[in-house]
């Protein structure tokens, strides 16, 4: 019995009236954990009962402690009939299992009923006593910390980053069990909530085990998702980045540079040369590492990391890499496009996948291989020096048919027996696990094609409609600093020279990772505008946050590409085929839109790019959101040129000229709006003149057959490189219109999809997190693609306008982390959900500069202790026989992994047309005259902008600090934010992960104010429950909050609706930066408070 769980029920308040006769309630409480149940006495005739129960003790395995929630049911005692349930509270006790997190859960919890919502509150105390269990074969992973935050959490430093962890658990959905026909909706909802709670507990435990096995103690960037697959089951899956974290302590604040002898062994391993530690985020003095529980980690962390070095990477392997990198040339677009990689990899990947599957099957624990297999990181922001180069966005999608899966295990899963798909080995390849494996392989090879050995900012998601499921993964191909890696494990042979002289931190990540002579895709290269030494692409797309040290000109803004595509209703394979046929076109158009909009704003890079493609019965929706910025290191973007199709026509020419003028005006206006004034370039400069290839990429409508018109278009007027838009049909005209109709945010507002807005530094502490959901019913049955596009674009634009309006009193402010999620819940419905935070900032940007954390730390000297046991260059050379020529691939029956898992002959046709299209595009990119302009930018400028650009909010003192304090009234104010920090405050303690799943159902929709009223109160209730849990843990804020799922089903005719919401985040204690002494007032004693600031 390694653990004792103790719970005490103190009191209730605001209970509902359960007895109409007396207008009172006779309440009592059942406390259940696992199979043990305790009851309190009945507190008769009171709406505010005081139970003050004894401590109920549960003696349980720590495995159960991790999996099971504590279940508290409040009931109304009824002498004659069955007791009526008032509602329930599920308490996740995971935070108590971590010695560093919360020590007690104590507070008021809303009593929740899936039919009636919140019905009063209950005051509960929960404690856990853990006994030490040194059993090596234990199944639990208590003590492993989980963070949703996608960066190294504040007040921690990463001793080691181990790499990718993933897990997936499948079960039958209780909603689809036979018993559901006879039980009440309430019972069904509760069964589902409980099951998902159990499954996420188990998932977390299993991931924890993997982390322990790797020698880590934490998972950062933990991303858990649900796939409600209907009849075929319920999938809970999670990915994350395993790390060994160490907390800063105040005790040894003065020691910033521990001696190797005092450093814990886990620190010292494999990196003998260093003495300095890497600091993340906070300017905290480093300690030598006080005794933390992780000192007692399995000794494997001090021995050489568990991953044995792979075979030495030969020249040959890298050359085969190059071959591979040629393959997706067709798709990568300039600057790394968003996964437009065409399909010629399928065959290849098949083989790869199979090999890996065999390997996994053969390996006693697939985990070790897995981590090495996928050098993926869910992190989106990194300590300085970590990220060497960024290649571009890599993404992969795959369409699967759910009903085709044979689920051998589901047949006997009646009793909520949880199944682990990882245990289903290679003999059952068509499992979800294999699907993801396949996708990850594809991502990995894309990264390789970009000359990168790692993928950062990695995420996965799905979209399900009936039996069709689109699996998507995306990330940013990158090269991480080899100094963090063990010797011999990195395949840096071909790119070695790049590390010879370390790139300046503020532009290094922009430098191309791939070989200039062997570029994976046609791109326009130029020497870096900052250091003048390395080549940079003309555009850079990434899924990560803007690195703190990056130099940015002007301000950034939200850039969205929106797209609708109609599709015929179909079933099964036909449907899947139709979808896979549409996907590449959608990606292509989204990419084009992004590119055009980027250029229209005079920007040259996208950060935090997130592309979502949602499938509905009769349409596909695509939404790409990102933050556009002007990276100082990258060349200025050329304008957009409009070209008429028939040059002879005078009317047409006037028309073209008019449009061209509008576009030019828009660009000029945007430059002013976003304060993009890159320093003028002068022709004399250092070094040799760079032959700058002038090029012009022509964007074709994906369905316009204009191959024969290629040659006639040679618009070489103007000195800038231009993006040419051809008005060859009405679609294009509409495209241009839509390009111009994107309204900029009103004065005083900014918006971005990343954590912070480049160009804004002095945040004040005012924040307002919000969730908004809008559903549109398309009544018009005969809509065209264009009509739909317009509707969809308007929907998104109107939502943004609504936000600006609602938050108008908070200006100047920035909507950060605007996270749009689209769905097609029913045939004619389009649903968009947005969660974001409005953060106020000080109008006077010059008033104060944040202390430059990033630069003072210095990238090069402090980074030595971060080690990568990861094998970042997996031995794909041995596992993947690669085609040597594109043509060879193209002529084969190529099947993209996006396709249905079954091969269809028709795919070959589809793919070859697609390839043709891309090839055409490549043809249009021609080398023009040599441009010898270069730049002698004053370094002073870049330095000063660097000072500005740290998005971290740790200004030492703020002139504007909200006077609101946290604890007011009897309810603790709990702040929530999707960001990893709260401006003006410092996080002093992470209390554990919040991961909650709720179902709400109603059979009186009209009475609850229609579907809007229903969802409004449900979202408010979810917020309330999150806040209550955080407050009970002793916290006062939630960071990295996100609403993963919001699935709404309605039937207004039956007056019914049901909604599922899944939210997650990190519960924290934070204190205002200005008053450190308040730290002890926040309810929890914190041993580690930094006192140095």
């Amino acid at each position, binding site marked *: 019995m390694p653990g004792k769980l103790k719970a005490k029920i103190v009191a209730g308040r605001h209970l509902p009236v359960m007895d109409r006769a007396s207008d009172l309630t006779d309440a009592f409480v059942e406390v259940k954990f696992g199979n043990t149940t305790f009851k309190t006495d009945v507190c008769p005739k009171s709406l505010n009962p005081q139970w003050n129960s004894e401590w109920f003790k549960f003696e349980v395995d720590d495995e159960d402690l991790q999996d099971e929630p504590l279940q508290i049911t409040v009931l109304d005692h009824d002498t004659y009939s069955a007791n009526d349930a008032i509602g329930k509270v599920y308490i996740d006790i995971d935070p108590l299992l971590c010695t560093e997190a919360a020590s007690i859960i104590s507070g008021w919890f809303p009593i929740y009923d899936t039919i009636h919502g919140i019905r009063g509150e209950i005051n509960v105390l929960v404690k856990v006593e853990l006994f030490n269990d040194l059993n090596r074969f234990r199944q639990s992973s208590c003590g492993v910390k989980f963070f949703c935050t996608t960066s190294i959490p504040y007040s921690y430093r990463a001793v080691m980053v181990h790499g990718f962890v993933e897990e997936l658990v499948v079960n039958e959905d209780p909603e689809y069990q036979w018993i559901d026909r006879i039980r009440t909706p309430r019972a069904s909802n509760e069964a589902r909530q409980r099951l998902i709670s159990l499954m996420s507990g188990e998932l977390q435990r299993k991931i924890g085990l993997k982390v322990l096995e790797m020698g880590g103690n934490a998972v950062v960037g933990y991303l858990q998702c649900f796939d409600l697959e209907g009849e075929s089951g319920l999938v809970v899956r999670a990915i994350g980045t395993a790390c060994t974290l160490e907390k800063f302590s105040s005790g040894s604040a003065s020691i910033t540079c521990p001696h190797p002898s005092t450093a814990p062994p886990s620190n010292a391993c494999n990196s003998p040369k260093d003495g300095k530690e890497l600091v993340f985020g906070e300017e905290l003095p480093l300690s030598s590492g006080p005794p933390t529980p992780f000192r007692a980690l399995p000794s494997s962390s001090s021995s050489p990391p568990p991953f044995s070095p792979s075979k030495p990477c030969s020249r040959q392997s890298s050359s085969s890499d190059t071959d591979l990198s040629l393959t997706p040339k067709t798709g990568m677009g300039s600057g790394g496009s968003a996964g437009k990689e065409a399909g010629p990899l399928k065959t290849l990947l098949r083989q790869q996948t199979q090999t890996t599957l065999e390997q996994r099957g053969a390996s006693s624990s697939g985990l070790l291989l897995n981590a090495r297999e996928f050098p993926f990181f869910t992190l989106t922001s990194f300590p300085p020096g970590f990220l060497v180069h960024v290649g571009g966005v890599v993404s992969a999608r795959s369409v699967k048919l759910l009903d085709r899966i044979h689920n051998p295990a589901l047949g006997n899963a009646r009793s909520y027996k949880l199944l682990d798909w990882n245990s289903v080995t290679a003999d059952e390849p068509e499992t979800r696990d294999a699907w993801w494996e396949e996708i990850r392989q594809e991502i990995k090879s894309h990264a390789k094609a970009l000359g990168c050995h790692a993928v950062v900012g990695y995420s996965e998601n799905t979209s399900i409609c009936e039996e069709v499921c689109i699996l998507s993964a995306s990330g940013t191909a990158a090269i991480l600093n080899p100094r963090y890696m063990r010797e011999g494990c990195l395949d840096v042979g071909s790119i070695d020279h790049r590390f010879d002289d370390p790139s300046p931190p503020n532009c290094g990540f922009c430098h191309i990772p791939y070989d200039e002579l062997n570029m994976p895709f046609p791109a326009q290269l130029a020497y870096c505008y900052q250091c003048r030494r390395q080549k940079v692409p003309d555009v850079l797309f990434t899924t990560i946050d803007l690195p703190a040290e990056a130099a940015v000109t002007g301000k950034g803004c939200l850039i969205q590409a929106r797209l609708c595509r109609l599709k015929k209703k179909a079933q099964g394979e036909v449907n899947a085929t139709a979808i896979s046929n549409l996907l590449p076109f959608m990606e292509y158009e989204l990419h084009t839109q992004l590119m055009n909009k980027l250029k229209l704003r005079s920007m040259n890079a996208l950060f935090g790019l997130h592309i979502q493609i949602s499938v509905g019965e009769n349409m596909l929706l695509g939404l790409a959101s990102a933050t556009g910025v002007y990276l100082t290191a990258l060349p200025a973007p050329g304008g957009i040129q409009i070209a008429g199709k028939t040059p002879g026509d005078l009317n047409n020419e006037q028309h073209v000229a008019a449009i061209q003028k509008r576009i030019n005006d828009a660009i000029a206006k945007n430059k002013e709006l976003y304060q993009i004034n890159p320093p003028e370039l002068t022709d004399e400069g250092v070094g040799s003149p760079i032959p700058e290839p002038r090029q012009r990429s022509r964007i074709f409508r994906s369905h316009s057959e204009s191959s024969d018109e290629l040659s006639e278009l040679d618009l070489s007027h103007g000195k800038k490189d231009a993006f040419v838009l051809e008005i060859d049909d009405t679609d294009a005209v509409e495209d241009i219109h839509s390009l111009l109709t994107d309204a900029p945010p009103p004065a005083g507002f900014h918006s971005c999809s990343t954590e912070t807005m480049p160009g804004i530094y002095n945040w004040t502490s005012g924040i307002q997190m*919000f969730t*908004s959901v*809008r559903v*549109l019913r398309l009544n018009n049955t005969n809509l065209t693609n264009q009509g739909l596009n317009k509707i969809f674009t308007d929907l998104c634009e109107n939502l943004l306008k*609504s936000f600006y*309006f609602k938050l108008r009193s908070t200006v100047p402010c920035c909507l950060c982390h605007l996270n749009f999620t689209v769905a097609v819940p029913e045939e004619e419905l389009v649903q968009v959900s947005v969660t974001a935070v409005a953060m106020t900032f000080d109008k006077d940007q010059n008033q104060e500069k944040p202390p430059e954390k990033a630069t003072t730390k210095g990238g090069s000297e402090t980074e030595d202790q971060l080690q990568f046991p990861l094998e970042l260059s997996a031995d794909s050379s041995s596992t993947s026989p690669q085609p040597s020529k594109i043509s060879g691939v193209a002529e084969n029956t190529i099947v993209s992994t996006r396709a249905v898992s079954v091969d269809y002959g028709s795919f070959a046709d589809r793919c070859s047309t697609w390839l043709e299209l891309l090839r055409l595009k490549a043809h249009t990119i021609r080398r023009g005259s040599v441009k010898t302009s270069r730049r002698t930018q004053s370094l002073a400028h870049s330095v000063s902008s660097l000072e500005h650009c740290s998005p971290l909010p740790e200004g030492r003192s703020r002139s504007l600090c909200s006077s609101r304090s946290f604890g007011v009234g009897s309810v603790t104010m709990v*702040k929530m934010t999707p960001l990893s920090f709260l401006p003006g405050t410092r996080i002093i303690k992470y209390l554990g992960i919040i991961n909650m799943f709720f179902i709400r159902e109603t059979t009186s929709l009209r009475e609850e104010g229609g579907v809007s009223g229903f*969802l*409004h*109160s449900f979202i408010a209730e979810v917020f309330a429950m999150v806040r209550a849990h955080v407050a009970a843990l002793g916290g006062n804020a939630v960071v990295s909050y996100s609403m993963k799922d919001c699935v709404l089903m309605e039937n207004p005719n039956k007056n019914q609706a049901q909604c599922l919401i899944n939210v997650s985040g990190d519960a924290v204690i934070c204190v205002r930066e200005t008053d450190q002494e308040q730290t002890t007032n926040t309810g929890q004693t914190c041993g580690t408070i930094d006192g140095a600031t």
Partner: protein
Amino acid sequence: MAVELDVFVGNTTIMDEEVYQLWLDGYTVNDAVRARMEGGVLDEFDATADVLLSDTMDQYRTFQMCERLLHSPAKLANQLLFQIPPHRQTMLIERYYAFDDVFVREVLGKKLSKGTKKDLDDISAKTGVTLKSCRRQFDNFKRIFKVVEELKGPLVENIRQHFLLSDKLARDYAAIVFFANNRFETGKKKLQYITFQDFAFCAGQLINNWTVGAVGEGLWLLPLANMDVDLDKEFLQELKELKVLITDKDLLDQHKSLVCTALRGKTKAFNEMEANFKNLSRGLVNIATKLTNTKDVRDFFIDLVEKFIEPCRSDRWTAADVKLYLTHYTNSAHILDTFKHQVVWDRYMGVIKSCIFKMYHD
């Protein structure tokens, strides 16, 4: 194409004071949108009517969900559903319990019963206050009345504590409760010119001076309930003794001569005062002696108007004249040797004086 669903939920509940007021005033969503457009929000901020409609709907929903909590304001502070900063909570409560003087003037002194509630549409039509707003205000009166009815202790303080209202508003509600409890007649035509604030002031005077709680100081601890709501029975009984001021001819003459001596030369209305002294004195003393009858208590204000204010007004007394007259009228009684009821007289006249001052206007 129609918006099927549209919600916006903030972690800190966003409430626009302007929209809140429109909601309280009983505007429908569409009317509120129109009012906001006329108010010029759109000009200040570049937005379309759709945006305004969506925002208004959201806010209305929020208010509707909050309304339940506002019925017992103490709950608003410790509920978990809405995160509202304390100063916003105060605003919400204060505004919710605010009322229109024109409306309250109509129901003042009426029984807060279902019957009265049925008449609300007439009142709404008459006052121009929307029916919805009338209902809210009426329900507020009733709710507060019900709660404080059961409570011991000072009325104003009870209201303030249970409904977290400002002192001013709590006093107004105390007046409303006091009027409703004693059923003072306020609806007569002759009383129409008296505003709610006049009445509220008078109610405050009565509560502070004529109720059990007024002289409380622990002496009459036993019947604690309603001690601020009901008039002091013992005092009303004692008032009968004042009758001697008008029944004893000598005393009346003596009183008159004292007052006239004091007033002579100080006012233009002296002649009228002298001529009317006996009538006026009879009127005031008669009001005092009849207050033991519940019926006459109800007619207290109408009696004051008929027996004192109207005669004075017809003689064109100025407010200063009234003040001068009443001061001397009250003080002179102290000099009367045979008049023994000085304490009761002061307690009575103190209130009468200030009420008349307040009520003496056009």
